[in-house]
């Protein structure tokens, strides 16, 4: 809570004389209660996974076989798994990977999807080819495709960026390039109908160049579906990451991630339910907070809201 109060107390002190556009956006964002709470949760989760390991010295891969299957205690606040690894430490380490992969892959998919969607919705000549290209990607069989990707790129990337960097790049691009299509289709649909609205026609008639048209008029108005795609995208990227590691595409098997912790926990669901609850809660909280942040951002960027 301290974060917000400090932010709020700073803001009125140094009110700038000229209202910049981003200042307006921030001011609007602040008034959105849900977005602020979402922001606090998100920052808290980030602090937990990034700074937590500094204070919590147990190695997430260290096996203490005598302590296996133990419930929550002072020594292991979230208990241990079937090999006696500390779940608390694994949640932190796993969060780093899951968040990094989830957010990066989501951004990549969003970028590709928005690019393709706007281009094909706005430029008639590109519509056909780009949408057939989207159909192609939608139709590709995912598993064989991923297996081909591993086969072709794992070793070159490993040699280039080291084992961890290589796997990260591989995983993010694999998720990114196989999940942008829905966003593209949705954005295109919206752009198609937006293009015919009066204000776009008006802007066009005064000779606004396409680049400016897209960034100033089209993009802000298709923001809401993009925001929804973003929130849903993070969740599916985190889950997809865990299924990729089963194919041998992901991080080494002893490397925890939220998705993997969840999957490994399901088999013990009726004996040690906490093993599924922790990672499940972490993923849900992340997605919820991103969702509210997204709501806030969209409202803040909407000029019609600003006068209220």
């Amino acid at each position, binding site marked *: 809570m301290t974060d917000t109060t400090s932010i709020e107390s700073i803001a009125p002190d140094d009110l700038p004389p000229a209202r910049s556009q981003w200042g307006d956006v921030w001011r609007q964002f602040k008034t959105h209660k849900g977005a602020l709470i979402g922001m606090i949760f998100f920052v808290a989760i980030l602090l937990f996974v990034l700074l937590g390991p500094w204070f919590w010295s147990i190695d997430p891969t260290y096996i203490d076989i005598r302590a296996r299957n133990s419930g929550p205690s002072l020594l292991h606040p979230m208990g241990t798994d079937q090999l006696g690894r500390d779940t608390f430490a694994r949640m932190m380490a796993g969060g780093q990977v899951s968040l990094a992969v989830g957010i990066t892959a989501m951004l990549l998919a969003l970028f590709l999807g928005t690019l393709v969607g706007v281009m094909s919705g706005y430029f008639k000549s590109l519509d056909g080819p780009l949408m057939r290209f989207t159909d192609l990607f939608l139709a590709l*069989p995912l598993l064989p495709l991923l297996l081909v990707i591993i086969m072709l790129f794992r070793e070159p990337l490993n040699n280039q960026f080291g084992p961890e960097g290589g796997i990260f790049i591989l995983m993010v691009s694999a998720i990114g390039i196989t999940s942008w299509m*829905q966003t593209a289709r949705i954005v295109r649909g919206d752009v198609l*109908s937006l293009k015919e609205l009066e204000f776009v026609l008006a802007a066009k008639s005064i000779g606004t160049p396409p680049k400016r048209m897209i960034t100033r008029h089209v993009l802000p108005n298709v923001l809401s579906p993009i925001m929804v795609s973003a929130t849903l995208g993070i969740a599916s990227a985190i889950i997809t990451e865990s299924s990729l590691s089963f194919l041998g595409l992901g991080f080494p098997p002893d490397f925890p991630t939220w998705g993997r912790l969840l999957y490994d926990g399901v088999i013990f*669901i009726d004996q040690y339910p906490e093993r599924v609850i922790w990672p499940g809660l972490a993923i849900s909280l992340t997605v919820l907070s991103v969702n509210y942040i997204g709501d806030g951002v969209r409202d803040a960027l909407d000029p019609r809201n600003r006068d209220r």
Partner: protein
Amino acid sequence: MLNYTIRRLLLAIPTLLFISLIIFLIIALSPGDPTASLPLSVPAEVREQIREALGFNEPIYIRYLLWLKTFVINEPMYYLQDVFGWEYDKSINPRVISWQTRSPVMDTIVQRVPQTLWVVGMSYVVGILIAVPIGIISAYKQYSIFDQIGTFISMVGFSVPTFFTGVLLIVVFSVMIPNDSFFWLPSIYDTTLVVEDWDSFWKQVRQMIMPVFVLSLFNAAQISRYMRASVLDNLRQDYVRTARSKGLSEKIVVLVHVLRNSLIPVITVIALGVPQVFGGAIITEQVFKVNGLGQLLILAIQDGDAPTVQTLTFIFAVLIVLFNLVADVLYGIMDPRIRYD
């Protein structure tokens, strides 16, 4: 619009041919092997003979052309033989044969369609029916309690994967509740059940409850988010203010004007989802042993059964192209300003 549709349908043929080629290349390049699931005690020479007998060792382009011919010419011939009274000879015009089961792939697919539609299709319909009203109400009463709860449930529903919710339901309804209780539900889907009277219909309903619930929660979560966002966008538009100032009732403003205009992104999502229904739901099918098309595909991939994977994926591609066309046509109907010609 008609012109556009016909043009797109014609264009779909080369598109699909190209897609089928790419799919084939990916499957052929991926490191699967039809003998991978045999026990290790089967020696290498025998494995080689099996691959030889299946035609796995032919050059890729021959395998592709062969598949294309069997799928595009022989399969329709087989299915139309009754209609046109053709003499169909399977030794001259073989059908697409699976490497796992050594039986025609299409027969297995046809066998799997009913249970896939019952479970996956039904959950999709249920999902849409729940999602659309929830999306509208959530947007209309933004930040009300209803909206907050809806957001919470749909976000949790989307971020908790079905392999978790499915198992949770089984533990509660099949394990914890005793076998003879009214609330007990079967954990294993009986694909041989034939619905012929009330009794078997009730059985069918009971075995569908859990998988349909799990899947529709997931579907509804996604669709309701897009619906809500889109309605919100439209509620802020000038035409809504105009309509209200004209004195139209709120019901008409929301259900006629806003709804129609906010359906565009939702139509896209729904149209993209229909081929997915056909593709099955791999995880849910596995959890409840529904053995639909999703399970067929995943087993075929694991066993390196290229003809089955190719055929299923290609049918899937046809549906994607088709339903994206449907979506495009619907855009034009929903929003007459959109012109393709």
